[in-house]
């Protein structure tokens, strides 16, 4: 039995489930608003929510897709001392369930589904990947205008309803002028003159890459996610050089993440620059353009 933890209407999950149906693999899909009670039946761990129930030992593999992972129900007790103690008891039962699940075959883990982008950059350099020079600063004193970019180091780049009715997206942008006042710690990085970008999907040691050629188009020059709907960027199947693939595999291993998307820039200088890893990103768009069938690959792995 495969356990899938995802948000309710997540389209990538739906596609993978269709493949699991085709392969006759049985699965349990857990929604983000689902809370489990931990029970013991016949000396075995049993988990039960309003729509699912299963023995822990029956789970053969786990796909941690989205939605914050497995959540648990807890009772509260009137006596604060009892409550404190019971909370700890809950904690150890939950900890046991999460760690047992992580010890099974899995795609990503509940505990490190979110990566610290700053630490990833340090690890990337350690495994031998080239990273454009960067620093954090509260002013633009050391920023070279038009030669450096700034981008968010948060996982979520969407500002929901930032401006009453509109969501905002934090894109990568070139720094065009100095700021007079100090500001919140901000990420600055050398701007690389790029030939094209590369998005590489990694799953358990295998890599599928796509070249994203956006240089001809001002709208997408610094951030390809600023889509041009009329003439979309050229996205085509691509192979990273083997030495870069080896480094990238090492990086995923060091981070203890076995699935995710990595972004690179191929510079005009011919070098490959590593930018970041997103373990939970959407990848089926590029997968279908390149005919990679990544949804099928995931279903096969589980």
């Amino acid at each position, binding site marked *: 039995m495969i356990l899938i933890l995802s948000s309710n209407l997540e389209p990538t999950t739906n596609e993978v489930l269709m493949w699991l149906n*085709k392969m006759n693999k049985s699965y349990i899909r857990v929604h983000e608003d689902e809370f489990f009670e931990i029970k013991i039946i016949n000396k075995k761990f049993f988990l039960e929510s309003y729509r699912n129930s299963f023995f822990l030992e029956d789970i053969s593999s786990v796909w941690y897709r989205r939605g914050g992972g497995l959540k648990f129900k807890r009772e509260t007790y009137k006596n604060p001392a009892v409550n404190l103690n019971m909370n700890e008891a809950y904690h150890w039962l939950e900890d046991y369930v999460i760690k047992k699940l992580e010890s099974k075959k899995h795609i990503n883990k509940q505990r490190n589904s979110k990566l610290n982008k700053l630490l990833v950059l340090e690890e990337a350099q350690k495994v031998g990947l080239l990273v454009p020079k960067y620093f954090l600063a509260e002013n633009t004193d050391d920023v070279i205008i038009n030669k450096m970019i700034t981008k968010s180091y948060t996982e979520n780049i969407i500002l929901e309803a930032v401006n009453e009715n509109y969501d905002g997206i934090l894109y990568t942008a070139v720094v065009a002028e100095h700021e007079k006042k100090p500001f919140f710690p901000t990420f600055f990085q050398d701007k690389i003159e790029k030939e094209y970008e590369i998005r590489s999907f990694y799953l358990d040691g295998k890599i599928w890459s796509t070249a994203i050629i956006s240089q001809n188009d001002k709208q997408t020059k610094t951030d390809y996610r600023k889509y041009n709907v009329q003439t979309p960027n050229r996205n085509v199947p691509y192979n990273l050089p083997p030495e870069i693939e080896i480094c990238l595999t090492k990086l995923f291993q060091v981070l203890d993440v076995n699935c995710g998307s990595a972004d690179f820039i191929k510079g005009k200088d011919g070098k490959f620059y590593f930018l970041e890893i997103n373990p939970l990103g959407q990848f089926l768009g590029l997968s279908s353009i390149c005919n990679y069938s990544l949804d099928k690959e995931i279903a096969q792995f589980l």
Partner: protein
Amino acid sequence: MRYFNLYSSILITKGANRILVSDLQRNNSELQSLELCEIIDEFKTNSIEEVFAFYDDESKEIAQEYLDFLLEKEYGFVTAGDWDRNFAPLSLEYVDYSEISNLFMERNELAIPKNLIQSIDNLQISHLVIFCKGKASLEDFLKLEKDFENSTIESLEVFAPYQTEIDEAFIQHLSQNASRIYNLVFYNCEKEPFKVENTFKFELLFTQQNLKINSCGKVDLKYFDTNIKKVLEAINHNSCLNKKIGIDAEGNIKNCPAMLQSFGNINETSLEDVLLQQNFTNYWNLTKDDINVCKHCEFRNVCTDCRAFTEQTHINKEGLDVSKPLKCGYDPYTNQWDEWSTNPLKQKAIQNYSL
């Protein structure tokens, strides 16, 4: 030295006199000369300078124009020193999880028998097309939507005869309660009951034509669609019949309701059992490369094909009809589109089908 790299999402289909350049990422195709195809081939094994050196001064200019055209269309890019060998070919494999993607039914009434609804669910069919010969009431339509409420059916397309009961209120009511109907055609309609504007959940058409099941199968530019999934399917399978089941008005299960061969009747057998019959899927793998005339046509990878109505000239060793579609007026050897129905060479087949 400079080198031209063709993007792997550009598919070139060579016809007898022309090529079709299909951009599988941007979903469009255009006709070009065989000469362009030759120069692209030369760029695959020679540098740009070497290719230009093959030509005299006058032709060199034309070669340069072709190169400019390829770059302007973003069909490829130029590198210095060598081709960029990290760019990988596009796999032409067709991968799809559905057992059956499409069910095409000819019905005397809109209502669908219970056992059939169960089979549709078991097979996880996503698209259903119903050609209805009898009158369909608003209740019939609402019942149809309800029957598939919790099913894998994503889209319903219905053709039904027009009747006076159908007015704006009828359609409005249906639109408010429909979630799967995406295309609705009322045929045999003398005059539109009201002016159709794009305010409904589905596409709506009233047509004067008296449609019949044998109105299907026309091959025309307007039906051609450049879409990576459809093109990959056409390269590997029959673009009309792959993963399709047809049921005619009498309940006979077929590859297409307009075809003759029946594999059983829904009153006696299930769709699941028919699928297990080995020869049911014989036509699924018949590609345009196997079909007479079409194999030399530049449109073969975007064509809709038709195995129900053909010129009836060629049968292959396996007994499959490999003749050109009857309702195609295109000749890949002259590059002319003519009216198919008046072509003297097609009259015998037209009579055989009583069209």
